[in-house]
């Protein structure tokens, strides 16, 4: 099999597997996997900026929350139906990520990390400040009647799983197409050696800006879908913790690999799920994982696979 066909087979195979799994999984894992697919879409978005462009953002919760609140507030206060509300969430994510990119891309390295962290914190505090509309920490529930998209009730587990699969499948394919397209190659080149790419005549800023907006919009799509599928929007999704999570998932699965975000989310979700049955201090797992990954496996699981088995893995 040629490289291209193998790539299609692998990624198409995963989506087919996820499609089949919904008929065999018990209810608990069925629900979990729907959640994991939405969160993995978030990680896929994060990976485009971090894994492929080499920009480490500590503020992606801002984009996730922009999508979630763009959608949620649209339904709650503007009386929108789910479809335009989702679009509103996406637009909110694109605008917020574009705006932050214009500011944050003036900095590099550590300053970029801190700037994104600070602006995400501003977003979180703003949600708390306008508690009258957002209900702050407590959040608000999106009623079942408000979650019917084109006559399909998204609160039904079967429909929800399918919607999550469509979201994840599109994000995965978009990401795969993007990194194999010339645009994605330029992003990787920027990650590897920015000065050389500049010397070759590429517009670095425009490429980074586009990467950040694409990444932020995918994160917003995940946030909006999360709110719609699980019927809840709350300020905790805008907190620092939700900026750290995609970093952790992508690091674990393998930064700069298309499948890495999903693998990382799947493993970490179940690790935290299992440990939260034992102790309330379940974030300990996340901390230990972060330290161990940076120390011993900065390439992550799929990165190791690429290094040892399949060098052409996208």
């Amino acid at each position, binding site marked *: 099999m040629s490289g291209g066909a193998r790539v299609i087979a692998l990624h198409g195979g995963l989506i087919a597997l996820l499609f089949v799994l919904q008929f065999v999984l018990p209810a608990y894992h069925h629900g979990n996997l729907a959640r994991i697919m939405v969160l993995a879409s978030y990680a896929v978005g994060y990976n485009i900026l971090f894994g492929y462009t080499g920009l480490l953002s500590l503020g992606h919760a801002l984009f996730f929350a922009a999508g979630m609140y763009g959608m949620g507030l649209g339904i709650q206060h503007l009386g929108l139906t789910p479809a335009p509300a989702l679009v509103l969430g996406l637009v909110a994510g694109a605008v917020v990520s574009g705006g932050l990119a214009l500011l944050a891309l003036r900095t590099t390295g550590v300053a970029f990390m801190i700037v994104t962290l600070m602006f995400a914190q501003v977003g979180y505090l703003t949600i708390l*400040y306008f508690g009258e509309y957002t209900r702050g920490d407590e959040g608000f529930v999106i009623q079942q009647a408000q979650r019917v998209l084109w006559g399909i009730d998204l609160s039904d587990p079967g429909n929800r799983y399918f919607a999550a699969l469509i979201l994840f499948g599109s994000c995965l394919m978009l990401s795969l197409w993007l990194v194999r397209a010339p645009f994605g190659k330029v992003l990787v080149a920027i990650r590897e050696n920015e000065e050389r790419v500049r010397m070759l005549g590429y517009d670095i800023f425009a490429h980074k800006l586009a990467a950040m907006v694409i990444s932020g919009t995918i994160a917003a799509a995940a946030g909006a879908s999360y709110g719609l599928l699980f019927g809840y929007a709350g300020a905790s999704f805008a907190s620092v913790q939700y900026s750290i999570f995609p970093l952790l998932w992508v690091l674990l699965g393998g930064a700069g690999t298309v499948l890495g975000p999903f693998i990382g989310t799947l493993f970490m979700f179940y690790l935290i799920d299992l440990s939260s049955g034992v102790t309330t201090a379940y974030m300990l797992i996340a901390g230990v994982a972060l330290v*161990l990954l940076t120390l011993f496996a900065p390439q992550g699981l799929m990165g190791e696979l690429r290094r040892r088995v399949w060098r052409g893995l996208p």
Partner: protein
Amino acid sequence: MPGNPYARMDLGPYILLASLEGAITAAVLALTAVGLSLVFGVMRVVNIAHGEFFMLGAVIAWWIAHSFGGHPALGFGVALIAAPLVVGALAVAADMTILKRLNYDPERTIVATIGVLYIIQQMTLMGYGPDARPVEAPFNTRLAIPWFEHGADGWAMIWPWGLGTTSYKLAVIGAAVVLLCGVWLLMSRTRFGLVMRATQADRDMAQAFGIPVERVYALVFGLGAALAALAGVLIVPIQQAHYLMGADPLLLSFIVVIIGGLGSLPGTVLAAVLIGLSDGIISVFFSPTLAKILATLLVGLVLVFRPQGLFGARSE
């Protein structure tokens, strides 16, 4: 003014009280932020776990004060010495096992210290529990403050209800001033300070001249953490010990270090005083959340448009 306990007081005495509280914030903040600034200045790494060292200081102080019976001053005195030493040793260990192996790569260090943050915080949750617990101050005499008011028969001295402070709060401010002078003396007058400054100026050249750079880094990381822990011990009689208490000092220290100019100690202290005092006074007029939003926004914008800080000199 919602939630203002002194709403019945006139504005003048109220602002005086707010600046006194602000001075305590500033004192504790200056210690914490100088620790962060020292680590950033010498090692060029950002320590996200810094707030957790502050929290550990407070929690260890509670634990020591709780284990020692007798006069509260006894336990507190022991905590004042022991907590910074324990936390400093922990930080040295973290430096040698984690940061050194990452070769102090700035980005990977940030990710690793985020991990350390969760490890310390969650271990504290497991060992100490989710409650906020008080520590009794070693001395706590209430001091009323007079206020001068122009009445019907000229100036008169009055004692407004609620306007006052405690001897302990004043001692915290004094202790911070003494400690900061100590840090300054250490940096400018001792051999270790010279070695630190040499390492900060040029790591490779320092190494070439036989300075054990790795040991200096470990000590600086420990010293920074010890300063944060000391600030935690000092604040715990005023503010209870809780496993999540590290978040605010971390954020404020970032604000202070960035506004004061990354790695500049005098700038850091100046910014701490400014932020601490204005934090007290701004919260008279705005809600604390709005004050935090404005401060965080300011820091983000300063980093984007004036990365050398408001008081720092342009280095290149």
